[in-house]
């Protein structure tokens, strides 16, 4: 396991009356691709800005390589940022943009030129030295922003929704590019996004945040398959989420019907949340499943069909390679293994649960 590079210890931050981050603790390992994922306003960007040095936490510490950098100015940190809207210097050429940080650090001309060439090659923009930022496409500007950051050889590269402004195809291309660059550079990436697909594709570790709290930390597989609460389940991918009753170990009552499951230790007759992924819902002949329903909606999605099935006053979202036309009566079956049971928060506030590590 690579060692800890950044250690965030109990930081809090509020703007006015608005508590944006509440007593948050998190560590980031060396050479890790860590993604902060959450809806807008969840505090992820604020957390990133604390790492960059643009915000100072009200409480808590940020430790970088064993040193407390909480109050160190951004220009004194070995951390570089790729900003959401690229923040290129529009009055400078691409080469001047990339050279900016190195000129400040008074590197030699030949060193700077060498670095520019290397960086532009890395981001696939060779020959763009003398162009002005305005004449570049969004994707190209994004690459320049990355090149400008990495020539300073940071230990950590912070990326604040860097692909947010790009169209879908370009975004997917850039995702692979970013993974390639990270592997080539061998540095830590801290990536902020609200796009769960992006997070699942690129990350080593995903930190799901909501309302200033961390909801869950884990690998993309963990997060997707074992969401620890309804928020995560809902936020990551599409899900059928039920208010259910844990009758006893390995048996849960969903929509008034008993479903066998594999979870134990929730007690008897305790209210819980149950999550079933759409692709885990199996459709069969009516009567042969656990409950029956009727198909009300059908869309062809390429790889699979997306269907809505009305059963027991609940609209089930179903992904299946098999097609059932609208109006067909179907039986619904779920493998006990595919039902994810989660503790129910007692009140609204508790929906945002802090996760112990």
């Amino acid at each position: 396991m690579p060692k800890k590079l950044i250690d965030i210890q109990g930081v809090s931050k509020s703007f006015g009356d608005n508590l944006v981050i509440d007593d948050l603790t998190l560590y980031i390992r060396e050479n890790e691709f860590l993604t902060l994922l959450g809806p807008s306003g969840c505090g992820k960007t604020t957390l990133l800005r604390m790492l960059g040095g643009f915000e100072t936490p009200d409480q808590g510490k940020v430790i970088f390589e064993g040193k407390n950098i909480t109050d160190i100015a951004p220009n004194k940190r070995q951390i570089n940022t790729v900003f959401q809207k690229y923040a290129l210097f529009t009055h400078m050429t691409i080469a001047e943009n990339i050279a900016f940080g190195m000129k400040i650090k008074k590197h030699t001309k030949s060193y700077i030129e060498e670095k520019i060439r290397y960086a532009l090659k890395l981001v696939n923009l060779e020959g763009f030295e003398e162009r002005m930022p305005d004449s570049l496409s969004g994707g190209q500007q994004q690459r320049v922003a990355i090149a400008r950051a990495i020539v300073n050889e940071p230990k950590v590269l912070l990326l604040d929704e860097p692909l947010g402004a790009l169209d879908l195809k370009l975004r997917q291309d850039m995702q692979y590019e970013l993974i390639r660059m990270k592997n080539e550079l061998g540095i830590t990436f801290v990536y902020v996004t609200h796009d769960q697909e992006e997070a699942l594709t690129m990350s080593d570790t995903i930190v799901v945040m909501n309302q200033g709290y961390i909801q869950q930390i884990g690998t993309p597989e963990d997060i997707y398959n074992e969401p620890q609460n309804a928020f995560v389940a809902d936020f990551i991918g599409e899900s059928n989420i039920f208010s259910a009753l844990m009758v006893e170990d390995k048996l849960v009552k969903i929509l008034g019907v008993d479903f066998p499951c594999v979870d134990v230790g929730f007690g008897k007759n305790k209210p819980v949340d149950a999550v079933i992924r759409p692709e885990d819902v199996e459709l069969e002949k009516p009567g042969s499943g656990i409950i029956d329903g009727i198909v009300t909606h059908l869309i062809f999605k390429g790889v699979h069909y997306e269907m809505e099935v009305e059963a027991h006053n609940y609209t089930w979202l179903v992904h299946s390679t098999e097609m059932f036309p609208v109006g067909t009566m179907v039986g619904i079956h779920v493998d006990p293994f595919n039902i994810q049971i989660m503790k129910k928060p007692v009140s609204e506030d508790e929906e945002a649960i802090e996760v112990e590590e």
Partner: protein
Amino acid sequence: MIKSFLKRFYLVLILILLYAPILTLIVLSFNNSKTRSKWGGFTGKWYVSLFQNKEIMNALFTTLAIALLSAAIATLIGTVAAIGISAMGKRKRTVIMGITNIPMLNADIVTGISLMLLFIAIRFSLGFTTILLAHITFNIPYVILSVMPKLKQTSKSTYEAALDLGASPLQAFLKVVIPDIYPGITSGFLLAFTMSLDDFIITHFTKGPGVDTLSTKIYSEVRKGIKPEMYALSTLLFLSVLILLFLVNMTPPEAERKKKTHPVKRILVRRVAPALLGILVLVGGVYYSTSSNVAGKKQVIVYNWGEYMDPEVLTLFEEETGIQVVYEEFETNEIMYPKIQSGAIAYDVVCPSDYMIERMIENDLLAELNYENIPNIENIGDTYLEQSKQFDAQNRYSVPYCWGTVGILYNKTMVDEEVDSWSILWDEKYQDNILMQNSVRDAFGITLKYLGYSLNSTDRDELYEATDLLTLQKPLVQAYVIDQVRDKMIGNEAALGVIYSGEAIYTQSENPDLEYVIPKEGSNVWIDSWVVPKNAKNKENAEAFINFLCRPDIAKMNFDYITYSTPNEAARDLIEDDAIRNSKIAFPDAKDLENCETFKFLGDKNDALYNELWREVKSH
């Protein structure tokens, strides 16, 4: 087809409307004749004399120095302020922006007067510095307003990006923020520069003696008519703006983006131009701080009508006495009066008209003269001193300088009867051929005289009678004007016009068909005299100046220059040209003046009544 023709026609029409006035100005700047109404052939002489005219050149330099300095300083302050404001919270920012915008929306006259009052209150003597301060003040909002949007556009993240890349806050500001908002700063500077260049009202109230910008200079010339040199100057200014605009628009922005600007141009734009500007401003500042620093030297501050003295006279006076003259001009008595009253500037010697002198004496604004210092007063004819008693009862405050009458100027080819009465101005034969003075006292004076009353009448019935008569006359009048009487009469545009005698002499030299007459019912005889305000700091120098002006040769020089009648008998004897020396216009016989009166100050209440009646006439 028709549609596109109409479109084009419309465009051409707009262009004509926009540029016809400027074209007229350019054409007139090459007109050999001094009047606007006559084309005297093509000449470039006004351009030559423009550059030889020290006063205009000085005014031009002052204008540019103030415009550049105030724009530069306002740009600096405004930019810094804009950055500060943009960093504020939303509510605070709205409030502050509101406050900074007020001076811009405020009427110039309010800004001007309040600045003047402030300067007076803190005993800051009016001069170059006060104009500069005033201009900086009203320029700052314009700079803030043009920098703010640029700051809003510049994402805060470019500044943060620079910090992120290792730049210190100062480096980030200089290398990233400033270049980003540079277009805003430049347009702010240019806006401030033009606003300053344009301003008249605020400058007028905050300027001190001896300092003139082009706008105040031009305005002070209005009384005698704007000199053709000014047309030439305006043409040059217009052309420089045109060329500047042309150059700015020449550079296609597309080409600039594709590749870097040419290094020579880059150096020119980024280094040489700002450096030159800086040097210009610095040199200008130093020049002014030395040239306007007349304190400590012997000086006299003169406040005179525009174009009311041969500039050569001032030079001679300075050479002979070693007293430096700070010379300033006013346009009307009414503009001069509040300046003296406010005490903003301690003028040493002023030249108001009769009724205004009476008012100043009444309000205790004048100092008694020590006539021992003015022995040359013996050259002034006794008649004039006698007439002065109408407003300066014991001849204690004033020395007559110029005088004249108001009469009828008529065109002999258009009027073939003998003109000897004001009645001809009511003759329907001359409908639309009559030019009246657009001034309350003159218009009423004539009418009262025609009715056989005093032109200082305060009798309501008499005034109502005059009002009715003026209303009756209105359909016959071609126009109520002031200066244009001269030009229109020269240009044969009207048969009859009410005019001042001094102007009449000049019109005759341009158009020999014109004749001037003082109607038998009598008219206004006016006297402009030199007085010394009570707060004068150099009273003895002022008296020396008055004494100098009473010297026959000097008075003669001024007569030749102004062509208004001189009360200086000895000077009249020096006039070589018999025709002029014996001119009935310049020097009417005593019997012609028998029924003439000077205007008297009638009191504020009667002034208001006159004005009200005059409005009634004009709006009828």
